[in-house]
């Protein structure tokens, strides 16, 4: 009886809001909850990467969603809220690159992402050459390990637009 959002109490919503630094309004959190329940097919309270077979979009981001519960799901998506700071968005992009999570982005990490974006349309050698050339022009080398502050320096002035609207019925 009633719709699924009645399973969330006001306390739950406020807790989630806090966890994501108020990036989303209460209405948006309710919509995200409906969506989370839809994605959580087996009702275990967390999403697993296989459940995304039905969403025909990108793999790299979806892998990061593996095993998240609802609170973490909302915190993850908070980088896409219009209320999120530029710093937060750049941090998110950094985390996408830093696959082993050690706070340092290597040449290979960047190569992997470039590979995802260009697929078979640039082969391995040219891909490495492109990345090396562009890195050197920016003052880095193939062996450089980029950290968060480097990303802020590179992306900070670019007018980064990374926003998603949560549909609120």
């Amino acid at each position: 009886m009633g719709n699924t959002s009645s399973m969330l109490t006001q306390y739950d919503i406020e807790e989630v809001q806090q966890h994501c630094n108020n990036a989303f309004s209460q209405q948006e959190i309710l919509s995200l909850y409906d969506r989370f329940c839809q994605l959580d097919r087996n009702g275990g309270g967390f999403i697993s990467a296989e459940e995304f077979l039905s969403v025909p979009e990108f793999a790299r981001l979806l892998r990061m969603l593996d095993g998240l519960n609802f609170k973490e799901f909302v915190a993850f998506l908070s980088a896409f809220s219009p209320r999120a700071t530029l710093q937060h968005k750049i941090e998110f992009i950094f985390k996408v690159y830093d696959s082993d999570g050690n706070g340092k982005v290597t040449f290979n990490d960047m190569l992997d992402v470039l590979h995802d974006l260009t697929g078979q349309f640039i082969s391995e050698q040219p891909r490495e050459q492109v990345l090396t050339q562009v890195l050197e022009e920016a003052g880095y080398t193939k062996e450089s390990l980029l950290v968060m502050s480097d990303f802020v320096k590179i992306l900070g002035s670019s007018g980064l637009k990374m926003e998603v609207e949560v549909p609120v019925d």
Partner: protein
Amino acid sequence: MSGIEGKLSSSSSELDLDRPNIEDYLPSGSSIHEPRGKLRLRDLLDISPTLTEAAGAIVDDSFTRCFKSNPPEPWNWNVYLFPLWCFGVAIRYLVLFPVRVIVLTIGWILFLSSVIPVHFLLKGHDKLREKMERFLVELLCSFFVASWTGVVKYHGPRPSMRPKQVFVANHTSMIDFIILEQMTPFAVIMQKHPGWVGLIQSTILESVGCIWFNRSEAKDREIVAKKLRDHIQGVDNNPLLIFPEGTCVNNQYSVMFKKGAFELGCTVCPIAIKYNKIFVDAFWNSRKQSFTMHLLQLMTSWAVVCDVWYLEPQNLKPGETPIEFAERVRDIISVRAGLKKVPWDGYLKYSRPSPKHTERKQQSFAESVLRRLEEK
């Protein structure tokens, strides 16, 4: 520094008879903006457009929405309405349901006791036999519709029996076929189902001239396409009914129409079906319930209310491709039935999407990277 040769290889073209070119359907605004100027590190590191698109799909994807059952909001959670509702449940399950089962049983008995003799006794007189079998199937469908108290309003001119025409309709449940069949003896093309439904398909529906396919068999498509063409040419065959969505959708959205029905070189007559959710949601969510459960749900509700519109027959316009024709007809049906159009292929419900979509994006990004690298 020597120039870097762009090793661009084009993606292998798959012989995709049925998969529409998805790029033709996506709104043009969704493509990544075209940057200019020399390639910089930040252009490679800035994956925000890609991430935004992916996050957009995570937050809300128009594909899963098509197959979500949206039952009407319950109104009974209230002190004085609740007992009334309980009383209603009692009537529906203890009075209406048994009566309906009896009606349906009578219908089956009448049908079987007539169709078997007709089938064998009139072996030599094929025309008469077919006419009687058609009538009996129509009768059986009427009994079915009565068994869930179907209140169906038909609008528009009734279909005529002419060769070189095909009927298309949006698809919500297998009862679509029954509702249409009680008015006109259509021949239909359907997925072969297991169980008792399959039994009915192979015996009774054979008499109205139905065509079977198997979604999972790729080679099947050519065989089926040929059968379709042969059927339409025949003067005496029943008009063919096709559900071009290829799968059941929840009656609020429409997914892309497969072009198969639109490249047969004949007139296409659209039919729009819209169910009123006032008493029951007629969407058959085949992933959630079997057809038997679905029928039981319908038989224990007050009524199934729906509107059927027979729309103006359409022909392929000069210079129009079959895909454009399919989209135009989908537009006509969606507007009439109040459905929102989404650019997805219904078969994605059963299998992974074709990699062509991602490949196209990769190709355009790769080309842009290599081009901008050369700029000074």
